[in-house]
C-alpha cells in the first residue's frame, strides 16, 4: 500500500469512534562512513513509520508502529482507542486540522532517491583524494522518503523529499579542518570540493598556539552561525517555551542587531522535507526576526490556540512535550565578501565550527561550548596563526544584540550545525565580541 492509503485506512478503521490523524513515512536512507581515509561503516535501511493519534472527547493517545499489515493496523487502531479512553479529558485539546492544500513544492530528486553505494563511495573517494595523504573522516548520506497524512476532518496530504550530504574532516597531527555540503540533489554534492576545503583548513591549522581566554571580536563561519540559530529556535522561537515564559522572545522588541533577519520556510524551493507537519497543517513561511526586531515564534495547533493565533505548521513528534521547533531556518546573508569580514578585524578570532554546545539557561540563552576544526587568530585584518580550541560561555542573544553584529557575509548556504545537516541556511558573521572562558589547558 502507498503511504496515503495506509493513513486513510487507519483513519477509516477508527471511524466515528474518535477524532483520528495518521502520518505515514516510507523511504530508504543510506550512509557511507569513512575514517582513517577508508570506508569502515556502510549502512542502508528501508523504513516505514506509522503514527496514529486519536482523541475521544479530548482524551488523547498516540500509537506508533512499523507494521503495516491489515491485522497490525487494526490492532493499532483498537489499542489507540482503548488507551485514549483511559485518559482524563484534556480541556485544551485543539482539535484536528481542517482540510487545506499544502504549498505546491516538491523537494525531491528522483536520482538522489536511488543513489547506489558505489556512487556514495566515489564521492568519499574524491573527498579523501583531495586531502593528498591527510587522514580523512566523515560521511556521505543519501535519503528519500514519501510522507502522507490523513485525518477524520477530511485533510489528505502527501509529499516526498530527498536529501544528500557530504561532511568530513581532514586531519594532521594537532589540527583538523572540516567541510560540509547538503542539497536536495546528490549531483550538487561535490566530494572533491568539500575535501579540498577541509584539507586547506587542516593545513592552515597546523602548529596552533594557545591564547589567553577573554573577550574577542570574532568572525564565525556558516557552521557556527547555524549552531547559534538552532539554539535560538529550540529554546526561543518555540511557541510552547514562549507561552511558559522560558523563552527570551519578546515580540516587537529590538532584541537583535538590524543586520539580523531570520525566517523559517519549509516552502522555499531549496528547502528540505515536505511542506506540512504531523498535524496536517500546511507549512508557512514564518518571520522570526525582521532587521533586528523579534517578530514571533512558530506554533503547532495547541500552542497556536493558547496564543490566539493559527498553527504555522510546526508540529512534530516531539512538539507535544517540547514544543514546536523551526527546522527550515534561513539567516539572512549580507553583501560582504567573507574575506572582507576577516579584513575588517584588527585583532580577533575566526571560528569555523562550534562543538558540544549546551545551554545553561534558556531564558538568558547562555551557552557553553568549544571551537573545533578551525580556529584562527586574526591580526591586522589577516589570519596570522592557528589557535588551539577554546571554550566559551556566551549568551547567544547578547552576541547578536543591537550594535554587536558588525557585518554579514555574502556566503549564505546550508550549513551543518552540530545538531545535524539540513536545518539551517546561514552566512558568516562578524561579531563585536565573544566570551571565551577557557583555553586548551583549562
Amino acid at each position, binding site marked *: 500500500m502507498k503511504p496515503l492509503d495506509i493513513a486513510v485506512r487507519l483513519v477509516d478503521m477508527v471511524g466515528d469512534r474518535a477524532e483520528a490523524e495518521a502520518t505515514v513515512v516510507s523511504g530508504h536512507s*543510506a550512509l557511507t562512513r569513512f575514517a582513517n581515509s577508508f570506508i*569502515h561503516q556502510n549502512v542502508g535501511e528501508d523504513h516505514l513509520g506509522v503514527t496514529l493519534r486519536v482523541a475521544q472527547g479530548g482524551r488523547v493517545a498516540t500509537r*506508533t508502529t512499523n507494521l503495516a499489515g491489515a491485522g497490525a493496523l487494526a490492532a493499532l487502531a483498537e489499542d489507540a482507542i482503548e488507551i485514549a479512553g483511559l485518559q482524563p479529558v484534556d480541556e*485544551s485539546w485543539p482539535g484536528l486540522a481542517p482540510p487545506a492544500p499544502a504549498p505546491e513544492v516538491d523537494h525531491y530528486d528522483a536520482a538522489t532517491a536511488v543513489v547506489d*553505494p558505489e556512487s556514495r563511495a566515489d564521492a*568519499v573517494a574524491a573527498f579523501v583524494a583531495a586531502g593528498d595523504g591527510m587522514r580523512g573522516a566523515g560521511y556521505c548520506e543519501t535519503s528519500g522518503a514519501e510522507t502522507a497524512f490523513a485525518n477524520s476532518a477530511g485533510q489528505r496530504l502527501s509529499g516526498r523529499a530527498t536529501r544528500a550530504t557530504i561532511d568530513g574532516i581532514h586531519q594532521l597531527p594537532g589540527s583538523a579542518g572540516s567541510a560540509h555540503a547538503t542539497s536536495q540533489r546528490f549531483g550538487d554534492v561535490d566530494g572533491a570540493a568539500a575535501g579540498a576545503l577541509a584539507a586547506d583548513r587542516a593545513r592552515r591549522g597546523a602548529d596552533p598556539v594557545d591564547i589567553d581566554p577573554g573577550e574577542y571580536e570574532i568572525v564565525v563561519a556558516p557552521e557556527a552561525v547555524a549552531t547559534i540559530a538552532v539554539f535560538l529556535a529550540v529554546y526561543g522561537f518555540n511557541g510552547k517555551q514562549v507561552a511558559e515564559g522560558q523563552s527570551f522572545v519578546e515580540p516587537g522588541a529590538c532584541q537583535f542587531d538590524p543586520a539580523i533577519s531570520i525566517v523559517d520556510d519549509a516552502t522555499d524551493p531549496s528547502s528540505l522535507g515536505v511542506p506540512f507537519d504531523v498535524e496536517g497543517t500546511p507549512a508557512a513561511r514564518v518571520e522570526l526576526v525582521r532587521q533586528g526586531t523579534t517578530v514571533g515564534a512558530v506554533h503547532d495547533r495547541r500552542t497556536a490556540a493558547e496564543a490566539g493565533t493559527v498553527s504555522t505548521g510546526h508540529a512534530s513528534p516531539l512538539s507535544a512535550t517540547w514544543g514546536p521547533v523551526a527546522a527550515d531556518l534561513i539567516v539572512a546573508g549580507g553583501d560582504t565578501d567573507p574575506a572582507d569580514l576577516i579584513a575588517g578585524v584588527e585583532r580577533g578570532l575566526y571560528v569555523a565550527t562550534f562543538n558540544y554546545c*549546551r545551554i*545553561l539557561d534558556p531564558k538568558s540563552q547562555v551557552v557553553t561550548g568549544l571551537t573545533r576544526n578551525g580556529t584562527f587568530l586574526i591580526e591586522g585584518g589577516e589570519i596570522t596563526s592557528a589557535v588551539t580550541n577554546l571554550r566559551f560561555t556566551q549568551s547567544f542573544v547578547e552576541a547578536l544584540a543591537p550594535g554587536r553584529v558588525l557585518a554579514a557575509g555574502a556566503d549564505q548556504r546550508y550549513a551543518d550545525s552540530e545538531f545535524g545537516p539540513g536545518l539551517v541556511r546561514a552566512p558568516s558573521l562578524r561579531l563585536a565580541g565573544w566570551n571565551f572562558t577557557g583555553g586548551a589547558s583549562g
Partner: protein
Amino acid sequence: VFDLATAAVEGALAAGAAYADARAVHTRTEVVEAQNGRVQQLDRAESVGVGVRALIGSSWGFHAVGDPSDADARRAGETAAAIARASAHVPGDPLRLADVPVEEADYETAHTEDPFSVPLAEKVDMLIGVTTAMLETDGVAIGRASIGFWDTNKWFVSSQGHRIHQHIVESGGGMDATAIGEQETQRRSHPQAFGQFETGGYEVVRRWDFPGNAARLAEEAVALLGADECPEMETSLVLEGSQLALQTHESVGHAIELDRILGWEAAFAGTSHLELPKLGEHRYGSELMNVTADATLPGALGTFGYDDEGTPAQRVDIVDHGRWVGVLSGRDSAALAGLPPGGMVRCDGYGRLPMVRMTNVGLLPGPNSFEEIISETKHGIYMATNRSWSIDDRRLNFQFGCEIAWEIADGKLGRMLKNPTYTGITPQFWAQLDLLAGEDEWVHWGTPNCGKGQPMQVAHTGHSASPARFAEVRVGVKG
C-alpha cells in the same frame, strides 16, 4: 524468529560475506508525560525488524528492514554484502574479528513487576498527582513528570553459530519543577536530570518515590530564584552522585571507547586523549579512582547477557587505583588493538549498525561517607543534579552546570547557591579526587540518552557513583 535472522545471515554469506550476523528485534515502548496536571504525551510504540551485518575486506556493510518475511530478510543480507563490497572503492586493511565463545543461550534481565501490565490509570494518576502537587508551591510555573518503559526481545544469529535470545526490560522516569524569574529559569529534578532508568520493572518507578519528592523540588526551585550566585573561584568541590555519574560518563566512558581511540569516530563524536601505547601506565586520576565497565550489575541500565555481537557480558577493569588499564571494545576493534574483546558492542534497535558503547562504566565506592566529606571540608561548594554538560572532542576540557549548590563552610552545609558551574581538564580533575563515599551511598545511575554514531544511535548506559570531593576546582564560570 531465529529463522528471520538466520535467513539474513544466509543471504549475506551467499552474496560473498566472509562473516555475517543478524539481529531480529521486537521492541515495545510506552512513554507517559504530564505537565501541570495535564497528560501531554501518551505514546505506545512497537517495531519489528531485522538488521544484518556483512564483513567483506576492510568494511562492514549493513542493511535493515522492518517487518520482514524470510525472503525480505534474506534480501537484506544480500544487500548488506553488496554495500560492504562497494566499500572497496576506498579500502583499508582487512578487518579481523577477535575470537569469542560461540554460544546458544537465553537471557532475561531481572524484573518484578511488568511495567506494561500496570494499569495506565495508575500511571496517569501518579503523574497528574505529582505535577499538580508541585504547582501548589507559590512561584512554581511548571511541574513536569514522565515515565518510560522498554521491552525488547532480540534474537541474534551469526555465521559462526551463535543463537542467542535476550529479553531486556527497562523502566524509569523523572520529575522536575521550574520557577521562572525576570531573566532566568531555575529547575529542580528528581531522581536526576532527564530521569532515572534501570533494567527492571515498574518497581523502579515505585522505589524512587515521586510523590514524596514533589514538595521538596518545588520549594528548592523557587528558593533558587532568590539564592546568591555561585561565586567564581577555585575551591573544594563536592559532587552529588548523579552528577558524578555524568562526569564519569563524559570524561571517562567516552574517552575509553576503543573506536574513538582508533580514530573511527574522528569526524563526529571525536577521538580521545588516551593513546594505546600508554595503556597500563597512564595516570588517569588519584589512588581513590577505580572504574569498571561491568555489564553484569543487576538492575543497572547498561546490563545485558550478551552484547550485540554475541560476546558474553563481563566486568572489565578500566582504571585501577588511578592507573588506566582498560578500554571498551568489540571484536573488530579489539583484534586491531591486540586486546581481548570486551563485549561492549551494541546497537539502537534493529535498524542500526552495532558499535562500541558503554555498558555500566562506574566509579567504585570509596572509604568515606557524604557526612564525612562535608564535615572534613573547611571551604567548598556542594553541587547536585546536572543542568548542562559540555566536553571537547578529545574528552579533556569539560564544563558542567548543576541545578543547585550549597556553600560548605567549616564542615557544614550553608547558604544555597544558584547557577553553579565547574570546569576542568580530565586527568587533572580526577587527580584531585580526595574523598569518596562508600557502598551505602553507591547508586547505579542510568543515562537513557547517550548519542553516538552516524546515523545517530541512542544507547542506554549505566554509571554507578557515590558522592565525592575534588580539591581545588575552578567553579562559578560566568557567561
